[in-house]
């Protein structure tokens, strides 16, 4: 079973924005939730979310870890540029 990268976002208070705090590798969403909570549990988080990296759609960058899912003009450039 193949593992996917999940990015982890969290905030300590409702008034704060979610920020990227790290990532985990997991075979499915259920394990990604548990791994994220157990890996980054040193803080008293108000909210934590995980997002499968391949589901993130880059907007203005054609390089970097999220470019694989690039769509639109910039994205096509990213793919064509490879």
């Amino acid at each position, binding site marked *: 079973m193949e593992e996917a990268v999940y990015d982890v976002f969290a905030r300590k208070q409702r008034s704060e924005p979610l920020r990227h705090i790290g990532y985990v*590798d997991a075979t499915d969403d259920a394990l990604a*939730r548990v*791994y994220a*909570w*157990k890996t980054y549990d040193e803080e008293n988080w108000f909210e934590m979310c995980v997002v499968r990296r391949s589901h993130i759609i880059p907007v203005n960058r054609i390089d970097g870890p999220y470019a694989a899912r690039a769509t639109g003009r910039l994205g096509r450039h990213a793919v064509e540029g490879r």
Partner: protein
Amino acid sequence: MNARDFSPEVREALQRLILSLADTKRMLGIRYSDWLLGAPSIESGIATASMSQDEWGHARLLYAMLKDFGVDPVEVEHSRPPAEYCSASCLDEPFADWAAVVAGVVVVDGTLSLALERFATGAYDAARRRIPKMLAEEAFHRDFGQAWMRRISEGSEEGRQLLAAAVESMLPDVVTCLLPGDDEAELLAGAGVTGQPGDARARLGRRLAEPLAALGMVPAADPPLPGDWIASRRRPAGEPAGDAVERARGDRNRALFVE
């Protein structure tokens, strides 16, 4: 209700229940810690380490309840020999492989949580106050166990067989030790400290039905008390391995012990 509000018989049974839950959590924490290294991935090892810490934290909170009964929790945690432990006997030795770890999370940890739920909704105030936070943490253990059980069930035949064998070896023992159907369990249920043991076993059966069905198994209906059952320890004869208890007691750090 506080400990002193119960009859002497109920108080004694309640003390044994607390010790059984605390010792089982402590030994489960040790058995998880055996797999901090050697888990299938870094993430699963970190999760196992975190669950180990959770179990130890829960055990400490449960041991602390013994103060209500005039018992010194420090003595209980650091001085008892293995022969006095009241932990479920399926934790006496390390989990043999990762499939057994997963079975331990689903079966042992799952049954412990059910036993704690019954305790948290009963008449003993300290349990009502302290256990809900433990159960919130346990929700992640349950998700971890079920996700891994699904993953192994959908994998190789060898993995399924290892998992099924581990579940089969643990389930009757853990049901007998943590949800016993003996006179003492009836006494505690009658005093409102816990629910009826039969109801808890039925609920456990419903919870385990789906994960076990993926392995072609059905939960053990109603295991009888084994012939070597020791009522005062709420478990069959035997004891946890000496090295595990030495680690649990912190024997090597005794000279540095501060509390």
